[in-house]
């Protein structure tokens, strides 16, 4: 463990189990935590963290990152596994490359962003978070979603919004198929505003909102 400056603590994941690493993150008192040598075997990264602190994984991570997370700003410089952001309540999780299935599943708040591709069932049963996928999303994006906003920057796979009961999915680009009971709506001023704000939060500058379509349950 070393301090780059007075306020940042650097941890080394090498040789630590996922439990040991997570305990070290939770116990660290600092203004920022950076973790080097994370890998796909590192599961549960920063899960259960509930304080306002930036935490940076300087590599890829495995499944269940930031599960039940609150308040913290988690940054993953590589890829992320499945179920990242599971039941996240607030704070932010940003993955700089791509993520596996069930990204942002059950999330109730906060910002969950992936700057590459999201695999299947991103936003599964989420109920209040904001999810941003810069590139493509796989099949059944927004499966069972009941609230919150999802933005997909470059197209989605099959069955967009499967079993969706609320919330909005904004998509730019082609959608392979839209689930039954979900349809596209004309973008209104409120949609444009919401989309712009989310793009800004995700760090996307100059995002052109006119190219997006809004998808919601047909009866909403």
């Amino acid at each position, binding site marked *: 463990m070393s301090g780059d400056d007075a306020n940042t603590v650097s941890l080394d994941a090498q040789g630590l189990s*996922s*439990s040991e690493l*997570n*305990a070290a993150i*939770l116990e660290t008192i600092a203004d920022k935590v950076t973790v080097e040598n994370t890998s796909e075997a590192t*599961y*549960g990264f920063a*899960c*259960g963290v*509930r304080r306002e602190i930036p935490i940076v994984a300087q590599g890829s991570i*495995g*499944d*269940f990152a930031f*599960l*039940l997370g*609150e308040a913290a700003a988690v940054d993953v410089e590589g890829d992320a*596994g*499945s*179920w990242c952001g*599971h*039941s996240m*309540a607030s704070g932010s999780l940003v993955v700089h490359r791509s993520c*596996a*299935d*069930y990204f942002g599943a*059950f*999330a*109730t708040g906060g910002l969950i962003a992936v700057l590459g591709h999201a695999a299947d069932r991103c936003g599964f*049963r989420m*109920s209040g978070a904001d999810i941003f996928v810069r590139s493509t999303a796989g099949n059944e994006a927004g499966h*069972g979603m009941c609230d919150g906003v999802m933005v997909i920057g470059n197209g989605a796979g099959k069955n967009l919004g499967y079993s969706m009961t609320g919330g909005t999915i904004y998509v730019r680009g082609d959608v392979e198929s839209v689930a039954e009971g979900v349809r596209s709506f004309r973008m209104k001023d409120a949609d444009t505003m919401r989309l712009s704000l989310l793009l800004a939060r995700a760090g996307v500058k100059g995002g052109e909102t006119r190219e997006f379509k809004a998808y919601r349950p047909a009866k909403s």
Partner: protein
Amino acid sequence: MPHILDEFVLVPARLPTTGQGKSAAQSLAVRVRAAGREVGTPLGLPVLLRTTSKVATGDDWGKLCKLLSRLRIPLFSGVAEMENLDAASVPARFGGRVIDDPLLPEELKTADAFEIECYDRAADRWAWPREAVVPQGLKNFVNSVRMAGGGDVPVGLSIPSGLPSEDLETAIESTVDFLTVSEAGEALTPLTIRSISEIRKLTQIGDRQPVQIVLDVPLDGPEQIAKLIALGADIVCVDRLIAPLLERPKPSKATASGMLSGIATPASNQKSVITDVERVFDQIREDFANQLRRCGVTSVADLKRGRLRATTDAAARMAQVELL
């Protein structure tokens, strides 16, 4: 009606004595474990309530919780059901999560134990949690929930009795602290007895951590609890022993105050449901203590399979105990 536990008897033995010739003190308490460590307050008895809800209990909920808190008997409950109770009335709480529901921070943070239910309510059948679909998914999920709870909240899975060995191994290898084995229906069957034996056998393979077994099965009476503990359970759910008391019609306000025309109902005849529930727990305690005493055991931990004998070959094979 014959009961499967009638085929087992606890073998009488003398109680150990202290150096001064007095019988050793008895302890009926058990502790739940998290990652192999005993955590939290000890349970007053190896029993808990799993399916008794605020909805079913109605106005008696606060009094029931106060009684359970005093007796140190936990119950499964959502955290919202504990709101508006004063501190002295809050019993130990086992929280839980069903398949395809979110985990809730306040449910896990304030729980004394946390159960991941392997039951798909939409399909009305048992199923692994969806998180198990990825390789090592169940184990990583259980460990992530444990980490999110700070490491001191025991994490368990609920499974039905009668699962094949492969599924029991999957459950054990997920490194859960406890398994809740449940059996629906009116009567205990060999499925539960075999499940307990199989879980105990599998946890002895390699360097697996011991797993506590919580049984939620049909019970006819308090006398069966000691046999289930001896067979390998750690905690037995006793909802079915008190459910009839909670479900019986309660006196209406009119009859309670004697206002029903033509019928005077003295207030002294009005029975408190909670008083009867307390009597049941007293009976459980007395019966359990007597059975331990009779088979020469002073603590729940010492009530093991070696104290049991089977009265039939089939029972002996089923439970892997000696024939009487």
